[in-house]
């Protein structure tokens, strides 16, 4: 099938799909008036019963916690898949040699960038931990804070400290942390069985709204997801960075 034929067929079917979709969204409830009792009940349950101020995080880790378990495992498997695919392109010894070569050659980045990176790593780490732990109180939670923490590692790389990146993430440590996070979430989910209630039930005491330990299992699950997302995203980014290390070795 030639490119031209494919283009004509594609545009035709896109037009058909577009017409069907516009017809479909025309039948949705009017914009601004969500229908259905779930939207009204869910934040009330979160606030009154579970004492969670941030209704969205409460729903993510409590009312719809089972969906989040699935999503977290998708992330785990995706990190695994990216690592397997990229590791096929290198061996362990070449990475150490490339990092040592990079260290000997000296950083090629500008002084301003290195200074900025060094200054920002600490506050980024602190901000990431804050966002993870305060998931139940303010906008935040495990997912956002986890990516922020992985971003702190990226700052180290951008500041030119490639060898420091290698020391700071012995790969087995990152993999162990990834597995621990995923396992912790599953164990807390199964803890319901130990306590004699349904799986994924909120079994810890609820505390008072606004305090750090409110919401029962919600902050615990938020921290578990934070650990797992940090480790997973760090694994993916470091695999991509390793490919860049090999690159700079070959350029000369």
């Amino acid at each position: 099938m030639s490119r031209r034929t494919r283009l004509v067929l594609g545009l035709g079917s896109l037009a058909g799909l577009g017409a069907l979709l516009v017809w479909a969204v025309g039948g949705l409830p009017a914009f601004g008036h969500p229908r259905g009792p779930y939207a009204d009940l869910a934040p009330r349950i979160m606030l009154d019963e579970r004492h969670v101020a941030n209704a969205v995080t409460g729903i993510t880790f409590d009312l719809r916690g089972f969906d989040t378990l699935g999503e977290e495992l998708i992330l785990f498997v995706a990190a695994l898949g990216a690592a397997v695919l990229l590791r096929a392109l290198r061996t362990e010894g070449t990475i150490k040699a490339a990092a040592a070569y990079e260290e000997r050659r000296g950083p090629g980045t500008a002084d301003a960038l290195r200074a900025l990176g060094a200054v920002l790593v600490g506050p980024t780490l602190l901000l990431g931990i804050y966002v993870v732990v305060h998931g139940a109180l303010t906008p935040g939670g495990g997912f956002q804070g986890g990516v922020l923490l992985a971003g702190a590692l990226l700052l180290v790389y951008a500041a030119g400290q490639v060898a420091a990146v290698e020391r700071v993430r012995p790969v087995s440590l990152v993999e162990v942390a990834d597995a621990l996070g995923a396992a912790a979430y599953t164990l807390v989910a199964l803890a319901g069985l130990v306590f004699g209630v349904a799986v994924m039930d909120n079994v810890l005491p609820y505390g008072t709204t606004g305090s750090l330990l409110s919401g029962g299992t919600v902050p615990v699950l938020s921290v578990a997801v934070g650990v797992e997302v940090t480790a997973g995203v760090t694994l993916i980014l470091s695999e991509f960075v390793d490919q860049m290390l090999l690159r700079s070795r070959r350029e000369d």
Partner: protein
Amino acid sequence: MTALQTVCLLAVAVAGTATVLTRDPLRQAVASGSLGLALSVLFLAFGAPDVALSQIVVAGVAVPVMVLLALAKIRTVDRAAARDDAEEQ
């Protein structure tokens, strides 16, 4: 529908179209970054600060880095292949 939401929606539509129509992957990474920014402002306008926070960290930190590193790796592979071809001849 507030005025802010209308403006944000139009900005997202324009940014999305620009991302699709930019053929060169390197320039497209920049357009994709602008789409991410427009989306995060849109999410704030829709009263979703959690989602906006997610979108900012992901579209600002994670995705552009991966795209640029993948493109650099592809360029390296091309250059090495060209060098090998030149050596053979």
